[in-house]
């Protein structure tokens, strides 16, 4: 059971109050009809799934009911940050969570 800081309530609370809501910063295209099938499929289904820091969405569903974003290390499950929906990912150059080079030094089982 994780402890999660809700950026709206400004409290750190048990995971039981929250619902995970998938990868963050996968924005719905402004004009979906203009996209090719490949581009649309990428929006719908392709996920970065990094082994390392992952930008993801949570909803404080049994609380303030807000969706918000978080960075969490998927290897340790430790949260790096949480921030409000619409805010940029802290301290990163890119919005999508492509894995950093270091994360690649891990391979298959």
């Amino acid at each position, binding site marked *: *059971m*994780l402890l999660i800081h809700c950026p709206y309530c400004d409290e750190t609370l048990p*995971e*039981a109050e929250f*619902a*995970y809501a*998938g*990868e963050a910063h996968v924005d719905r295209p402004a004009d979906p009809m203009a996209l090719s*099938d*490949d581009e649309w*499929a*990428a929006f*719908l*289904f*392709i*996920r*970065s*799934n*990094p*082994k390392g820091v*992952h930008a*993801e969405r949570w909803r404080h569903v049994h609380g303030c009911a807000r969706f918000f974003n978080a960075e*969490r290390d*998927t*290897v*340790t*499950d430790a949260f790096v940050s949480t921030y409000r929906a619409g805010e940029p990912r802290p301290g990163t150059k890119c919005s999508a969570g*492509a*894995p950093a080079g270091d*994360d*690649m*030094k*891990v*391979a*298959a*089982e």
Partner: protein
Amino acid sequence: MTRFSGMAVLKNALNGHKGWREQWPDSEPKKEYDVIIVGAGAHGLGAAYYLAQEHGITDVAVIDKGWLGGGNTGRNTTIIRSNYLYDESARMYDHALDLWEGLSQELNYNVMFSRRGVMMLAHNVHDVQSFQRHVHSNRLNGVDNRWLTPEEAKRFCPPLNISRDARYPVMGAALQMRAGTARHDAVAWGYARAAAARGVDIIQNCPVLAVRRGPDGAVEGVDTGKGFIRAKKVAISAAGHTSVVMQSADVRMPLESYPLQALVSEPVKPCFPCVVMSNAVHAYMSQSDKGELVIGSGTDQYVSYSQRGGLPLIEHTLAAICEVFPIFTRMRMLRKWGGIVDVTPDRSAIVGKTPVKGLYVNCGWGTGGFKATPGAAHTLAHTVARDEPHPINAPFTLERFTTGRLIDEAAAAAVAH
């Protein structure tokens, strides 16, 4: 390869077990192979075995960052069944089931495939409709599956609670008699031993850092903890870690990796004759030959590679077990563990070619990879050897996510409305 048999055991029993040899050598990598398989789980080792056995391709290395069979192969609840809804899935899993039935003899390694029957419980009208659909579809696909009344279900599995007053009363069950369990480690070991005997190198404790591509975009080999190893073809069979490995070849995947937990009880005398699954209540269970109740839990809600998993999920799982089998509350959980499963949007696997020449992938089995092992391995080997899919894995493409031709087993079991 020393042939295993009752006589061999007897002979060795008399000589202090001096005659047994190494089941597979712990190989050091060569500079180059025809085929490299990344991931020495049962899927990867099996693919190597079938490459050698059926396609005559023996210049093969199976590379793993840890010990063989140490990933999801050794962490699952060993359920084998093939009563899937869609034709594509039924064919794949039934192909696997056909191979399971002769696997011990084929590998000369007892994988203890036990056809004890898998029973799926229906707890509401929607379940009944859904499972009946499975039963009808399976019957016409030649897949064994039949419908039981609650009383028949109870006769087949006496610990089952079929009280009408239960929070989730049992309204019937679908039973696949041909389904069952197998000994997971033995599958990896059996494939490893048989593959090694045919010339395959098994390279353990050698992390694959990246898939290397040449100027023409085709695969050149893999960078590993033991240096670069050249290969004409590379097949990724790395379960939960597929996204990471594929990313190194610049292929982004429709996958997310989730922690999945399982647990066993202390061993008791035989009390549970079959496998029971209950999707509505979120419980599935069997009893191992050792006597432990083997119980599968669900995935945690968030993406993770930590293999930890939370306590509340285990609590929910055991509450579900006690709901369906109230006599087991005083049983004790002996040990629980976690694995990492990669899950596709339609909950069906991806087995086949990729946009990169010479690169093949076998992934996305979610929580159901073990049962598919021989089928996945066999069709992957075919795909790698011929550079074209076997008819059975042909529908399990990466492209289906673009065209929309999904094999949506999850949606087909959509929750009740």
